[in-house]
């Protein structure tokens, strides 16, 4: 088996090196548990710990890691060149380990548990087992169950001798269920009478067998709750996976802004579940959404049995509740759950409490009312896919599209208006730097060095310093085009827009044929609301470079619309989309600008409708409706502004509903828009947001939080 084999579902199959390599978040817990094993082995203290967490959160991984670390017998380990936790080699003569793995299906009594322990010991210590105990254990099958139990107890005691036995016990809750009260009492009596065993166990939740005061094991185990992964920890996990698999592309991608955003998207879907991150790591780097669709479909297919198995672990009543929550998609009250499942409120409450403890559902309370929903949106999506034969897939893909692109867009929006220019500037600057370094730029003078240094300072956001350097360059040579141009950019960044235009004008005086300075001039004039002049600058930029300068076209269209030259603007948009049919750069950034201009242009319902219909028809013609739907979503923060009336927001919603209410591509966008408008009308009641599925709600919440920035 490949030493780097990554198992999403059976961590116990992974090598110790792999387990260590992708270990995140739980170093302290594991080190502490090993210390407790040491204490249990070296003294009469015996510790009993229960690792608690939902399925997929990494319980087996943690157990496997403890197992491997304890198995190392030769002093200090090093792994990947890093010092490891001190190895308990002194335990060699003091500790035995029996690992009862996840599927101990055969345990239904204390005797069965004893036999399982023997099987685990036989695997760990075959020599001792075969020579000293095998025949005795075989003989057990000749005895009655009671006699065999007593005999097995004695054999185990003899096997352990003066050592301590560490029982690594997965799914202790299941084992306790099978043992029943009688078996639990036998188990506990054995622990108390012989003081030979320490236990590290796992369970999905704190279960009654250890938490009810009437249970034999009440308070016996100390719970250790395994926390869900935070986004940073998920990033760390994915980085480690990339390192392990020597996937440089993934490693670099994870650190990129888009990579971080994609992790965020998966984070919302995964609900902190380790397993899901490991699975999604395979296609995190796909460049386009189209490339993503196929692996996502495949992953959903792979995950479905996992979520089905998660359902199998529940009682029929709990399954019914989960199924209802899947069907609803959004959060619902206990009352609704009770009604829809035909159970009493009290039963629904207690089942939900248990489901919550097991990590299947989360709850949000408003006064005395609690709303419940599924913890992992992916569980719902997978089960829906199975049930509805593919219909939700499209919606899911649409959702992913929003995530993947919206996040990127947000970053750009944050940069606007000032930094949008800066982005181009840096690009330009780096290009110059490259030329400079490769010797293609005319160099050799101090002036050029000043410009280069100014650019460096600008990149580092030391704009005042940059400005000084550019001005020094101008002082040396008042006809230095680059110096005037760069000065203009820096003044723009410093908010001195009028001075920036003057500097650009000076650069144009020196060199009238650089499309870029015209573009910058246009953009800066636009900021000053000098629309006609800005339009002229854009026209000039396009005239100089009609093939290469993509942004100028779409920004120019924005100006036309802003100048109420609707017909011309829409016509140019259609043409531009024809002209740049393959351009990937055309995205929501421009679309949102157009939508915003339409929104601001009037409050007349019918005019909105007519303009938006034209816009929809153009996007439809060019098969980029999905870009438009994202534009609709990204417009929401503007509607949330305090200066926008509820009536205007509602009219806007109804306009969109009348145009696209029947189009499935708009389903998610209109759901967002409707919820946002109702949220506004309710003066910010969170209850309204609970109408949306969790993953959509989290996205909308981010948009709502942006309102003040818009």
């Amino acid at each position: 088996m490949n030493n780097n084999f990554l198992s999403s579902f059976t961590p116990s199959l992974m090598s110790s090196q792999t387990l260590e390599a992708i270990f995140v978040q739980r170093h302290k817990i594991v080190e502490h548990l090993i210390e407790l094993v040491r204490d249990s082995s070296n003294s009469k203290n015996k510790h009993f710990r229960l690792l608690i967490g939902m399925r997929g959160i990494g319980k087996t991984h943690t157990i496997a890691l403890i197992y491997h670390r304890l198995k190392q017998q030769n002093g200090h380990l090093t792994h990947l060149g890093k010092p490891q936790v001190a190895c308990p080699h002194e335990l060699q003569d003091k500790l035995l380990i029996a690992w009862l793995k996840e599927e101990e299906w055969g345990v239904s009594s204390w005797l069965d548990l004893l036999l399982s322990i023997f099987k685990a010991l036989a695997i760990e210590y075959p020599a001792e087992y075969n020579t000293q105990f095998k025949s005795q254990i075989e003989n057990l099958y000749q005895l009655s169950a009671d006699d065999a139990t007593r005999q097995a107890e004695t054999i185990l005691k003899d096997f352990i001798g003066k050592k301590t036995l560490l029982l690594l016990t997965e799914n202790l809750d299941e084992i306790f269920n099978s043992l029943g009260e009688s078996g639990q009492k036998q188990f506990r009596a054995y622990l108390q009478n012989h003081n030979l065993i320490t236990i590290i166990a796992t369970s999905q939740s704190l279960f009654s067998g250890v938490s009810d005061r009437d249970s034999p094991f009440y308070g016996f185990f100390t719970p250790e709750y395994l926390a869900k992964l935070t986004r940073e920890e998920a990033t760390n996990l994915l980085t480690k996976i990339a390192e392990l698999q020597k996937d440089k592309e993934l490693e670099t991608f994870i650190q990129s802004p888009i990579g971080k955003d994609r992790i965020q998207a998966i984070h919302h879907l995964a609900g902190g579940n380790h397993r899901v991150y490991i699975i999604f790591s395979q296609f995190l780097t796909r460049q386009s959404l189209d490339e993503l669709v196929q692996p996502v479909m495949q992953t959903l297919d792979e995950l479905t049995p996992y979520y089905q198995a998660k359902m199998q672990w529940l009682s029929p009543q709990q399954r019914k509740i989960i199924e209802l929550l899947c069907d609803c998609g959004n959060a619902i009250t206990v009352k609704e759950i009770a009604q829809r499942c035909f159970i009493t409120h009290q039963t629904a409450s207690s089942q939900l409490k248990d489901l919550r403890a097991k990590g299947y559902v989360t709850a949000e309370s408003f006064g005395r009312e609690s709303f419940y929903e599924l913890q992992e949106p992916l569980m719902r999506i997978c089960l829906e896919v199975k049930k509805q034969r593919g219909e939700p897939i499209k919606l899911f893909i649409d959702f992913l599209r929003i995530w993947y692109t919206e996040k990127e867009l947000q970053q750009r929006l944050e940069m606007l208006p000032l930094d949008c220019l800066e982005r181009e500037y840096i690009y330009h600057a780096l290009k110059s730097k490259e030329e400079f370094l490769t010797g293609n730029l005319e160099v050799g003078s101090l002036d050029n060095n000043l410009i280069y240094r100014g650019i460096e300072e600008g990149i580092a956001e030391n704009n005042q310093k940059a400005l000084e350097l550019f001005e020094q360059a101008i002082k040396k040579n008042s006809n230095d085009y680059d110096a005037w141009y760069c000065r203009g950019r820096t003044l723009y960044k410093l908010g001195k827009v009028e001075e920036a235009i003057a500097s650009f004008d000076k650069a144009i005086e020196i060199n009238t044929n650089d499309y870029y300075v015209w573009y910058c001039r246009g953009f800066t004039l636009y900021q000053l609301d000098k629309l006609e002049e800005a339009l002229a600058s854009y026209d000039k930029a396009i005239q100089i470079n009609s093939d290469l300068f993509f942004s100028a076209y779409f920004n120019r269209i924005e100006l036309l619309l802003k100048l109420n030259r609707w017909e011309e603007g829409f016509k140019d948009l259609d043409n531009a989309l024809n002209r740049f049919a393959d351009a990937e750069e055309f995205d929501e950034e421009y679309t949102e600008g157009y939508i915003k201009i339409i929104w601001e242009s009037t409050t007349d319902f019918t005019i909105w409708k007519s303009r938006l219909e034209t816009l929809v028809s153009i996007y439809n013609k060019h098969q980029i409706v999905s870009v438009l739907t994202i534009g609709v979503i990204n417009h929401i923060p503007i509607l949330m502004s305090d200066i926008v009336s509820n009536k205007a927001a509602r009219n806007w919603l109804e306009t969109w509903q009348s145009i696209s209410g029947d189009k499935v591509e708009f389903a998610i966008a209109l759901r967002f828009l409707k919820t946002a408008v109702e949220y506004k009308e309710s003066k910010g009641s969170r209850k309204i947001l609970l109408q949306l599925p969790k993953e959509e709600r989290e996205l909308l919440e981010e948009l709502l939080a942006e309102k003040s920035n818009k």
Partner: protein
Amino acid sequence: MKGAIRANPGGIIAPENVIGRDRLIADTWDRLEQQSIILNAERRMGKTTIIKKMQAEAKQETLPIYRDLENIKSSIEFVETVWQDVEEYLSTKGRTTKKVKDFLRNFQGVEFQGFKIPQIVATHWKILLTKTIEDLLENQERQVIFFWDEVPYMLDNMSEKQPEEAMELLDTLRKLRQTYPNVRMAFTGSIGLHHIVKKLQQQGYSNDPTNDMYPIDIPPLSLNHGTDLAVRLIRGENIQTDNITNIAEEIANAVGCIPFYIHHLVNDLRFKNVVNQDVVTEAIQDSLINPQNPWKMEHYRDRIHNYYEQEQHKYALNILDILATESYLSFDELWNRLALDSASQNQETARDVLRLLLKDYYLIQQGKTYGFRYQIVKSYWELLRT
């Protein structure tokens, strides 16, 4: 570090790591010189830990034999277990349980070997038990103390199918105590023995089989000892504090000096950066009211509904509500407050419920006044209800 102990809430504590029980243990030894005892306490108060420490540190002139009996389901199993323990001990001295083996040989007609008493003699368990005790006493001089843990569980197991057997066992043990003055028994259990005896009485049992045994209550630690334990645990877990003694005292006080909760609280604090008073307060509040917390304090609320009669509910809740905000009240003071609620107007019911709350470890009587037995339960009740 000297005196440092790892937090081990609920686990098995090494005798040398049991803090603050020396006085109680000394008193218990004194009492055992006179008579057998029953150790009473709420669950997780440390009964087993105490008797295991006693076993480990027994004086030369006593022979302690510890056994957890919760897995025992019949009298013959019990006898077999006692006999195995005695046989195991005697074998270390080169002796054996001759009387038991003679009896079995006579009964079966062949030499008895092995560690399993044949089913055929099950009905003669009383004789076997007596002979086991006689074998032990004849083969050594010391006073024997059977530390029998979870006796109520064993009786409960038996009473499910054969309540008469449980009754007979209780009577037989009483008889053995009376017949053999060198035999002492120390019973402990997670459930009160009185619950089992009451259950048996409902099925016709009329004896009081433990009235010769002295009941010993296990109290929380003193504040000094609670603080000492907390200091050692803080050191054992290498927790940084702004003032270790103050924090330890804060912890001990907050959980009413119950070792189980001190262990828990320190365990919960082990990954905090620097522990100060605010951190402790926050951890306690979380532990008391968080439904996911293993302390499961809601048991104290739920038990009223699950185990008390319908008409007693309001009385129990009202009494606890009143005492949660007071230190100690006499019955008259309590009654004056209770009677203000139209749902608790019967004085006799109030007295009955008060007795139940005392027996179920909610309350304690000091002179003529009543208050919460454990500070931690009081704190929980206050948080929950007032």
